[in-house]
């Protein structure tokens, strides 16, 4: 017998069989095997191999997560993140506290990108004409195609990318263009802030980038802008904005936000004053404001009157901005027309805001000049037969480009088409070669943050499916297929060529490189503010007469969940209730009640929206606060090759997208098709809910004046019952007493907390049908109440996690002690003990409990198993679950504190929702520590408990929202 490699002696486990068989022994074995057969027959027994490390990586302690800095890139701009890694697999994304765009927070899309990594529908292999091929085969085809272009100096080569701010990638593409001087680099991305660049060029002659400093602004106007929620820097902006929304806080006092927009955005909902104006009138509005402020660049062009009511509103706004002067700020939205951006620049210039509340920098984007017309120019070349090799690096233009451009059929003329993307999508299908792309969590890279800071991307895991980065494709085109992405990026930042002969660049450069990889960004690399002179007179095409307000317009916006369609196969995002409508797994044509009535439409009707001979069909959702005659639709749905999650969800808007710049069209025909559509919304009854929310004191709001007069008057309804009003003795939380405070004044309703919670706590998705039945599983939800009159201006968001009541109604009714009170005041859920009577949920006044009506957890898909947080139980069917205050994080902190022989410090435990929150509205901590942030928040006169009159004594309480309206505007 030779010893086996694993050290086990063969035959050891067979030895018991050598005994003489006896009756007793036979019965014993039979009994045991029947029992085993019975048990294993009922449960899945997967075959798993445990392979120990041969050489354990440094710092890796099983059970302890590691965090690595990296960056998520969307629309070209980077958001610095820290990625939690358990035993080599990334499981959760947190913000990078040092990174200027993040400051430790993230948005919902970044939180969900961890699921994109493990998406089982990601493309896994190189394909040629839909057939499985190999990377070497592609290299061969590519070099053959390139060889043909040598003679023409690359005249037939076109590269189509998304917006690229990556210095290293831009350098490589430029190197390629240097090698093939006649080749061209184009870019296409649906939401790439092209109009912002065009507006800056109008105002300053250069496509400059604008960075806002909202913490310095006293009066802010958002012009069709959602700067708190979407676009470059929004996470940072939400933080800066919220820092000035806390009445009674030290500092410069509360700011005041005005919003002029066509459809409700979260920024509009956060505004003290909001004016609903059609997108097509936005430029006239901006011009009106500029003339009120006597801006030199448009002097003499008053702009048309907007009607007496709005004119008065605009005058009050202008007065407020004028008083604020250099502390005023106008923010134009990413999708607003270029003229609006130009006027915003002019107004900011006139206010003296430059250098104070905002500053200009060089553009973030590298290369690909005139991005707006870039795709059109490419297609003209294609039509002219000039393009023989088209390499598309990321993006999905076949789906996302306006159908009027006819991208799909026009590119058929290109001889060789190569597409690099995460999924084998609509564009891949029309390309000869498809290359699976490495997810950003799998590859190296870099990009610029909203202020230009160079942010590093480092891989957390080897590519799951042999994905390639854009770097690798460019390297292959440069004839260096062996160069890795790491090599290229590192070489770029350590100065020059790939590691020299001795294998090392200079020590200083290497150290700086390691440091920036460790930090996630290059310290001090933000683009410096630039002086820029405003043109003396703006050449802007603004009509002097009011436009025909009877015409119906359609406004195109990014889908809050799927963005431009790239996240369509992300089930967390599809199931994430969209802000305001709370619909999931769908798109809708949003319109105001009056617009719908005028068009003869009701919620759920399918409408045909026709424009210049093309039409789409879209289900109608009625949303208060839309501008009259304005319909909002979202790009990013109606995918056909997104994957099992995203296929066929919602509708496609590209047939009626304008071919040129601009994000709205006017003069559409809207007709009823007669068909009906079922939505799956997580919150029904918008019509009556707002009134109840106010009457019942669910959301409590007041003005800054109220607060100054009597701080208590806003939150105190005299509802709180006396402390001795219970038969049971009070809990004594001798160690810690955990609690949470949620500031409704700074919550923007962005949903980041919901996705963060889903990622942290292994919360399953249930699908559209189950959501329609009311079975969504989110542990924290964001309730939305329209508290104004039907068409008016007040929306309240309220995140609702478990309240962890001290006299919890759920605990007394559970027949089996499956939900009990913990020693530190947590209302704990014992999954193992739960038999699923659902009585606890019925008796929960907040309805925060979630039930596994089926086995929702996906235990079969191999890649999704890697996704789970190993510190949190995956729940089976028939079991109740709910927010735990991230008890696993409390435990981790307790273990650490015990090892160090100290108490848990304030801020050491952050719940997933708190950590993600961009505006820092959620604060968690120890109530036994009077100095903790949460104790101080709860000491505020604005503190109130939701439904406190029920004597539930919630541990989660809210700070009433205080607004800062302008007394000159009536009805505030």
């Amino acid at each position, binding site marked *: 017998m030779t010893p086996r490699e694993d050290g086990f002696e063969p035959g050891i486990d067979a030895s018991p069989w050598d005994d003489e068989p006896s009756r007793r022994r036979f019965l014993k074995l039979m009994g045991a095997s029947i029992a085993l057969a019975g048990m294993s027959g009922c449960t899945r027994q997967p075959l798993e191999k445990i392979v120990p490390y041969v050489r354990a990586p440094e710092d890796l302690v099983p059970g302890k997560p590691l965090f690595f800095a990296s960056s998520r890139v969307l629309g070209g701009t980077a958001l610095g993140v820290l990625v939690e890694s358990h035993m080599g697999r990334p499981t959760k994304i947190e913000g990078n506290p040092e990174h200027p765009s993040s400051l430790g927070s993230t948005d919902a899309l970044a939180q969900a990108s961890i699921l994109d990594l493990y998406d089982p529908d990601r493309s896994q292999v190189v394909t040629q004409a839909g057939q499985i091929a190999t990377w070497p085969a592609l290299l061969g085809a590519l070099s053959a195609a390139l060889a043909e272009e040598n003679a023409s100096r690359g005249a037939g080569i076109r590269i189509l990318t998304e917006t690229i701010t990556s210095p290293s990638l831009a350098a490589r593409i430029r190197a390629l263009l240097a090698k093939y001087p006649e080749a061209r680099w184009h870019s296409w991305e649906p939401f790439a802030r092209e109009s912002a660049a065009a507006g800056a060029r109008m105002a300053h002659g250069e496509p400059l980038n604008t960075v806002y400093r909202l913490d310095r602004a006293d009066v802010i106007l958002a012009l069709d802008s959602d700067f708190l929620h979407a676009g470059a820097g929004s996470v940072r902006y939400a933080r800066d904005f919220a820092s000035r929304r806390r009445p009674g806080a030290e500092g410069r006092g509360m700011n005041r936000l005005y919003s002029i927009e066509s459809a409700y955005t979260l920024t509009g909902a956060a505004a003290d004053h909001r004016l609903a104006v059609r997108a097509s009138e936005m430029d006239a509005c901006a011009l009106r404001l500029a003339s009120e402020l006597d801006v030199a660049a448009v002097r003499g062009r008053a702009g048309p009157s907007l009607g007496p009511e709005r004119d008065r509103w605009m005058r009050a706004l202008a007065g407020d901005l004028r008083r604020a002067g250099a502390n005023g700020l106008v923010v134009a939205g990413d999708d607003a027309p270029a003229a609006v951006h130009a006027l915003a620049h002019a107004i900011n210039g006139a206010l003296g805001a430059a250098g104070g509340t905002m500053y200009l920098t060089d553009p973030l984007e590298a290369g690909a000049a005139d991005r707006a017309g870039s795709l059109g120019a490419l297609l003209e070349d294609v039509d002219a037969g000039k393009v023989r090799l088209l390499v598309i690096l990321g993006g999905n233009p076949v789906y996302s480009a306006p159908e009027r451009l006819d991208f799909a059929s026009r590119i058929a003329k290109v001889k060789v088409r190569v597409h690099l993307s995460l999924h084998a999508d609509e564009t891949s299908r029309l390309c000869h070669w498809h290359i699976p792309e490495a997810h950003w969590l799998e590859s190296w890279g870099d990009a610029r943050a909203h202020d230009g800071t160079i942010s590093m991307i480092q891989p957390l895991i080897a590519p799951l499916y042999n994905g390639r980065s854009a770097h690798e494709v460019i390297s292959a085109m440069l004839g260096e297929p062996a160069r890795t992405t790491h090599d290229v990026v590192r070489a770029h930042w350590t100065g020059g060529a790939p590691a020299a002969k001795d294998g090392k660049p200079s020590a200083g450069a290497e150290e700086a490189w390691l440091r920036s990889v460790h930090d996630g960004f290059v310290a001090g690399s933000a683009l410096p503010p630039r002086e820029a002179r405003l043109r003396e007179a703006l050449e802007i095409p603004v009509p002097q007469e009011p436009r025909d307000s009877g015409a119906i317009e359609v406004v195109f916006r990014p889908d809050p969940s799927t963005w431009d369609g790239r996240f369509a196969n992300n089930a967390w995002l599809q199931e994430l209730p969209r802000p305001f409508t709370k619909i999931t797994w769908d798109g809708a044509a949003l319109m105001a009640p009056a617009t719908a009535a005028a068009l003869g439409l009701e919620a759920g009707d399918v409408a045909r929206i026709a424009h210049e001979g093309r039409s789409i069909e879209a289900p109608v959702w009625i949303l208060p606060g839309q501008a009259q005659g304005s319909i909002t639709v979202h790009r990013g749905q109606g995918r056909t090759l997104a994957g099992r999650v995203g296929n066929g969800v919602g509708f496609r808007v590209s047939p009626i997208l304008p071919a040129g710049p601009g994000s709205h069209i006017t003069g559409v025909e809207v007709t009823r098709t007669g068909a009906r559509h079922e939505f799956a919304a997580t919150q029904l009854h918008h019509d009556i*809910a707002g009134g109840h929310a106010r009457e019942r004191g669910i959301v409590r709001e007041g003005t800054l004046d109220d607060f100054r007069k009597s701080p208590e008057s806003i939150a105190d309804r005299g509802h709180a019952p006396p402390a001795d009003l219970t038969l049971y003795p009070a809990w004594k939380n001798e160690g810690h007493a955990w609690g949470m405070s949620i500031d409704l004044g700074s919550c923007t309703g962005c949903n980041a907390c919901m996705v963060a919670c889903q990622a942290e706590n292994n919360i399953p998705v249930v699908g559209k049908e189950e959501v329609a039945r009311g079975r969504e599983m989110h542990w924290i939800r964001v*309730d939305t109440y329209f508290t104004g009159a039907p068409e008016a201006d007040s929306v309240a968001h309220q995140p609702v996690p478990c309240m962890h009541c001290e006299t919890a109604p759920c605990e*007394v009714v559970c027949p089996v002690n499956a939900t009990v009170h913990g020693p530190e005041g947590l209302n704990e859920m014992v999954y193992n003990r739960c038999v699923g009577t659902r009585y606890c949920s*019925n*008796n929960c*006044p907040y*309805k925060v409990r979630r039930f596994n*009506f089926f086995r929702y957890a996906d235990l079969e898909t191999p890649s999704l198993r890697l996704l789970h947080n190993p510190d949190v139980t995956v729940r089976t069917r028939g079991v109740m679950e709910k927010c735990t205050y991230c008890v696993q994080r409390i435990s981790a902190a307790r273990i650490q504190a015990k090892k160090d022989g100290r108490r848990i410090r304030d801020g050491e435990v952050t719940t997933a929702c708190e950590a993600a929150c961009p505006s820092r509205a959620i604060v968690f901590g120890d109530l036994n520590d009077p100095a903790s942030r949460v104790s101080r928040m709860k000491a505020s006169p604005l503190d109130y408990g939701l439904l406190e009159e029920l004597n*539930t004594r919630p541990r989660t309480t809210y700070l009433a929202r205080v607004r800062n309206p302008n007394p000159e505007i009536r009805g505030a």
Partner: protein
Amino acid sequence: MDRIEREARELLEAKPGVLEPGHTYASVTDKISAVVLSRKTPRSWIIGFAISFVLVLMLFYTIAYLLAVGVGIWGINIPVGWGFDIINFVWWIGIGHAGTLISAILLLLRQEWRTSINRFAEAMTLFAVSCAVLYPLLHMGRPWLAYWLLPYPNTMGLWPQFRSPLVWDVFAVSTYGLVSLLFWYVGLIPDLATLRDRAKRTSVRVIYGILAMGWRGSAIHWHRYETAYLLLAGLATPLVVSVHTVVSFDFAVSVIPGWHATIFPPYFVAGAIYSGFAMVLTLAIPIRAVYGLEGFITQSHLENMAKIILATGWIVVYGYAMEAFTAWYSGNAYEEFMILNRMTGPYASLYWTLLACNALAPQALWLRRVRRSPLLLFAVAIVVNIGMWLERFVIVVTSLHRDFLPSSWGMYTPTRYDWSMYIGTIGLFLALLFLFIRFLPMISIFEMRAMVNEGIEEEHR
């Protein structure tokens, strides 16, 4: 007070014609035992049993699917965590009440007219409870762990959570089921012996012989039997009140507007008796027609039951009125909204139908003509059964679907599995009843013989 009491006693003690004149010991025994032993099984029985057995198979299919997949096959959700499961549980338990009331309380009150209906009313109780217990068992997310609700010593060192009304339910319903079974079985023993004695085939004789537990009809037997039966009646009496009181605690203990009400226990008990008598009528009227038992279940039986329905119906109406009054008088916004939502919300049609069924329809029973017309009485009984089912629907669903936070409001729509389970339990109930009619004396033979005796004595007097 005295006058009312006296009148009530008179009403209860009045026994006009509980047995048709002309019956003798032999004719009573012949007629009742013939249904089991000698008469040809009627075609209507075969058809009826076949239909109900198909429904039982549907129930089994539903249960199998439910166990395989989960309670998600029903229409329940968050916020409406209970739907048909608890509605039907309460409905079935309520139906059972008449049986216990008839057999125990009326026995103790010496209401002899109960004799001809008590046997199948008790059987009805037993079968209704069997249907009822299926629901709390199967409504659990993990029904295979149902035994965790029992207080048994275990290695986990855990007891049930005794503050939960669901644990009280376990005790209340299991006690109720057990006592009902004992009561029914003990009552059957002398008749099982009669069947044993009259059976012609050996196998039948052996089976009834075993079931009769050696009953020989000696004086000692009779003495002990009477004592035991009386004791069991005494035991069962408080259960009539306790079971539905405890069931009502499932709701009353909670904080949900529409559930959180002190009126629930008496209101539920009255409702249970109300629906129970309606179900006895629903069953008795067709059975006496099919088997020609008008001589035993006479018009005066039907009339007495109609009067009880009328009386308990008013208690139930008082409950509805008090629910609405308390909601308004409390000044509590949630309570006010709850009752307005019942009256005008999405389920308003059900609320008004319930009132029409339970408050208006029984008023026809003021008319002697209706009380004495089996057909009209049957119609009223069916309407009351529907009304009482709707009452439970309204209590369970409309309270849950819109509670405190408007953001969490939802709707409840039963699925086909809700219906197949409900109709399946009706099938189970009927199938058991059909088997009972076929194989056991549906009217107590020995007690009816006693009635003959009394009749003769009265004649002689």
